[in-house]
């Protein structure tokens, strides 16, 4: 009981230190507002606003129809370019797709000579190239069929494929990215705040001082975890309500309370990770360098950007040790699928176990590194 009270008191000190640093607060505010809005609004994972350029050597009514067929929201209005410009446009990445319509295309088509269209795709744009090419093909097929006055395009399917995207009917990337971005920033913030707080105390000699007082290392570490975790949690929840639901108008399915609970467990795990890192990298310059690969890997490989399924098996297994993997799954479950605790409890349990592991390691190394520095 006394131990809890001390932990609470030390944590208050921790909060106070952050709250009276305006630069730090400004960065936290930026992280949970502007940083989320710009990414959610700016980035498209679906085929949207794809840049296409057309070299029209035919200049026929049909070729004009084809050029006009590339419509928003999937494509930006097609840009007409000269043949000589093709290389430059593709090299500079000004267009991801270039359609070449050969001279006499319409005439050949009407004469059933099976003319050839060429679609050049910048395959370095992995996220867009494959899906965009499929869209372009569908658009061309439909438009040419209409031109030929046919209802069903020969070569197209004898069925109607009805695709329904659950939880996000229009597959708007902004929704997905807003939550991903929230999770990412939460991770960076928690690791850096907690880890740097320990190193700052070590560099200023206050950590050593604390250990001469009637305190246990576990109390010192626990105070860092709850205080920094709480700070980030409050910021994240505010952001979820005001920015994600408010500004970005993302409909959120599940219970905010359940999300808060899961996020709290996660934050204890990542703040523990931050403290653990601070016992490996004992000076600020080292910590800064060590933190980068850690949070980048957590953020980009935990299923928030690219699906876990497409990773090599060994990496998938390794990423099960990342609390972020479980948070991403948890957050998507609660916020999009509206899943409840009955479905998501294994994720929470996993985060708790991983967090306990980090906290244990952090404590184990804590005293040792103090003695080494002293």
């Amino acid at each position, binding site marked *: 009981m006394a131990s809890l009270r001390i932990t609470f008191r030390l944590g208050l000190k921790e909060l106070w230190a952050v709250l009276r640093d305006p630069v730090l607060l400004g960065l936290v505010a930026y992280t949970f507002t502007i940083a989320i809005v710009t990414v959610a609004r700016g980035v498209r994972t679906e085929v949207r606003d794809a840049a296409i350029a057309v070299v029209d050597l035919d200049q026929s009514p049909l070729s004009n129809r084809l050029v006009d067929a590339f419509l928003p929201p999937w494509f930006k209005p097609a840009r007409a370019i000269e043949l000589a410009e093709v290389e430059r446009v593709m090299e500079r990445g000004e267009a991801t797709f270039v359609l070449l319509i050969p001279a006499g295309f319409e005439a050949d088509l009407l004469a059933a000579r099976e003319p050839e269209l060429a679609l050049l795709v910048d395959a370095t744009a992995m996220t867009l190239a494959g899906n965009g090419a499929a869209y372009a093909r569908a658009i061309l097929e439909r438009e040419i069929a209409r031109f030929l006055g046919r209802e069903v395009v020969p070569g197209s399917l004898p069925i109607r494929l009805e*695709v329904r995207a*659950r939880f996000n009917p229009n*597959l708007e990337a902004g929704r997905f990215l807003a939550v991903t971005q929230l999770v990412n920033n939460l991770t960076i913030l928690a690791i850096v705040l907690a880890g740097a707080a320990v190193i700052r105390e070590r560099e200023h000699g206050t950590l050593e001082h604390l250990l001469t007082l009637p305190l246990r290392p576990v109390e010192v570490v626990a105070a860092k975890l709850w205080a920094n975790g709480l700070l980030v949690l409050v910021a994240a929840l505010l952001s979820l309500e005001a920015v994600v639901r408010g500004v970005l108008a993302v409909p959120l399915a599940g219970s905010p309370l359940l999300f808060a609970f899961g996020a709290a467990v996660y934050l204890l795990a990542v703040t523990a990770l931050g403290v653990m890192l601070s016992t490996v990298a004992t000076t600020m310059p080292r910590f800064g360098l060590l933190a980068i690969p850690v949070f980048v890997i957590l953020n980009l490989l935990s299923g928030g950007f690219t699906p876990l399924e497409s990773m090599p098996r060994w990496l998938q297994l390794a990423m099960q040790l990342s609390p972020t993997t479980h948070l991403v799954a948890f957050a998507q479950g609660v916020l999009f699928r509206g899943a409840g605790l009955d479905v998501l409890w294994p994720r929470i349990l996993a985060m708790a176990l991983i967090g306990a592991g980090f906290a244990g390691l952090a404590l184990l190394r804590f005293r040792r590194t103090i003695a080494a520095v002293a």
Partner: protein
Amino acid sequence: MSARGEPAVRCQGLVHAYGRLRALDSVDLAIPAGALVGFVGPDGVGKSTLLALIAGAKRLQSGRLEVLGLDPSRRADRARLARRIAYMPQGLGRNLYPTLSVARNLAFFASLHGLEGESARRRIALLSEATGLASFLDRPAGKLSGGMKQKLALACALVHDPDLLILDEPTTGVDPLSRRRFFELLAAIRAARPAMTVLFATAYMAEAERFDRVVAIDAGRILGEGPPALLCARTGTARLDEAFVALLPPERRRDHRPAERPPRRGEENVPPVIEARGLGKRFGAFTAVDRVSFSIGRGEIFGFLGSNGCGKTTTMKMLVGLLEPSSGEAFVLGEPAGADSLAARRRIGYMSQSFSLYEELTVRQNLELHAAIYGLPRAERGRRVAEQLARFELAQVADRRPPALPLGLRQRLQLAVATLHEPEILILDEPTSGVDPIARDRFWALLIELARTRGVTIFLSTHFMDEALRCDRISLMHAGRVLAVGEPGTIAREHGQGDLETAFVELLAAAEASERAPLAPSAPTVLPEPPPEAAASAAFSPARLLAFSRREGAELLADPVRLAFALLGPIVLLLAMGFGISFDVENLRFAVLDQDRTAESRAVVRALEGSRYFEPAGEPTGSAEADRLLEAARVALVLAIPPGFGRDLVAGRQPELAVWLDGANTTRAETARGYVLGVVERALRELAPGEAGTAPFRLETRFRYNQEFRSTAAIPPGVMMMQLVMIPAMLGALAVVREKELGSIVNLYTTPATRLEFLIGKQLPYIATSLASFLSLLLIVLFVFDNRLRGDPATLALGALLFVSATTAFGLVVSAFVRSQIAAIFATAILCMIPTVNFSGMLYPVATLDAVSRAIGQSFPALYFQRIVTGVVNKGLGLDSLWPDLVTLAGFVLLFWVLAVALLPEQER
């Protein structure tokens, strides 16, 4: 050089305020050239501020100041002054570089002043000879004892043969022997350079007695000024410390009296409360404490004396359990020292040598926090805190934070914290270091009261002889061993003809002599010629820039762990991301809701099962169950085949086939949709060959630059780009702010170095590190991820050079702007991540971004290098098509330099 007789420094109406606090209140002063002038006075009265203003380290607020006939408020004059002034700030070795060797520190200061080559070497050799540092040239400055650090700092200050030497408390925290040697050194140097003016702040009144002139300062005002003898005569006192007290306004003088120690009574036979038996501590090959034994009784005041680095602090740390003894044992209050007993710690108060309370909390908050930590009953806390505030005269500053307080007040706060819980034992490591005489007397009155009336045992270390005399017993330590233990009077009689300081010096000198040749200073009678003015006067000096580079590079090399993080971190990350980020979605788990169960529907299901993209995960019985599978994220998609599918298909009625996708991850959903389409189409073609007829046209889709559509061709180059943003920016981001936090930034303020030299100089080693990183990453991109350099390697190399120059410079901008290292790390991580990962074209093509995001992407270097990397690696381009990006990157480098220079102050405010 000022002619003799003309003042070296003249102040008129100098005022300097920190917020509402006036540190200097209308100071008028003239200091004659060639004099040794002492500045004395209590803590926080403005001594340091005055000296920093004269040195040009602080910006002048109001009043007139003339130094060596020049005006420090004008930039041009300040540049000329910097070559003629040397400034040693307060704090042991504060402007030195602790991880660098003695030789490197000296060489660095020499090159800052344009001293290079043979003449620099001769001068450094002479100075290190004179200071006795010659045999420690390879030792890192941080590992020197306090006295040696100060000698090194002095040698560094003298390297350019200044006309004005400004020393802010150089002897504080230094033992008597080292102090004596410091003065001998100074005297020898002054003999060789009689024209040099020396300003010398000190807390030791006895030291000030030998100065030519003394300036007594109190509360931002000058109390008196003149030769010490004259001041004494004017006040009718015998000693300078008495004269100082006499000069104080009456209300400050009121309750000052030297602390007297009443004798201990009848406590000689109590059992010891602190006992050490053969206590020893080794750090690697270095023996810090060598078989030390002592025992201290209840209520005793036990003093620990000895040169800096002799093992006093280590011994104390072992007693409070911060360090584990290598040999021997120690008992505190009957328990083994360092036992994890919280109850025992509650009975001890410890005060470490350096300030170790929270700078972000106010004085009162610090006390309140500790009251809670010590577990004082809630009801008592307020009263105890108020008591301590009153007793230690901290009430007036209760709501201020420690960084704004002078050293003496900070020490008082530390003692207030250490005694807050009324411990039975106080272990105090140099508690009065840097505290002025009056405050020390009060402090001692408190200690004596605690020991005598409450039976508190006090174990403290000190460099002050008058304090040693007030102890019941003292122990003299040297090089980890105890040289003498006993009552101070006895030791003084036996070893120093009644004088304790003499005894101390004699004992130490004898101990040193037995180890090695004595280090008596042999100051050169003739110092080498000063540097040619022209060499140092350039507005921009490549030599100074390189001096910063060499130093920063040496610091980086001295920290192999940091270097390893900088080089290995990106490699680990590239491998993980290169294998991990893939847009070739495979093994998508799917469920089938087949309500048709005909040959046709099974054919569709089989086609999906047979594809490498999909992995079957059960057949739910109804749509509700299928929904739940999606909800629990057990499957990524559900294939729903309605009843009558097979019949309608055969009849050519275009039946519906439904796919329910999990839209939570939109990237995956989009890809899955495309794959389902492809697989189903092929399956149906096989089911009904020939029916589809031929298409009226052919569409040839050519995936360019990456024909096989491999993620490993597209992703790793981008990840390499990302690494060359994050790591170099982080390296640069701590470069400046760390110096701000640790204090060596003052060398920028007071030497001829300019901000651009400082910034670019620091940047070069980081650029070199980042280029090495680039090379290692490129090799991985090429050989591990199986890519070829299709384009022009020279363009890529030039791009990388410009790019890491830009990103390290971005780090410098952050570093110049923020005040704390935490903020620097945080700002760098957050500010770099988004434009790099999201808006650079690394993951999402720039052409598809909306206007705002594209603008953000375009105002950060990442986008341009991403173009260069994919241009050269994937697209086979060269300089002819990539030059605009190179030019833009060069523009960023310049822009960031300008910003960093603008944000970096030239002087402290």
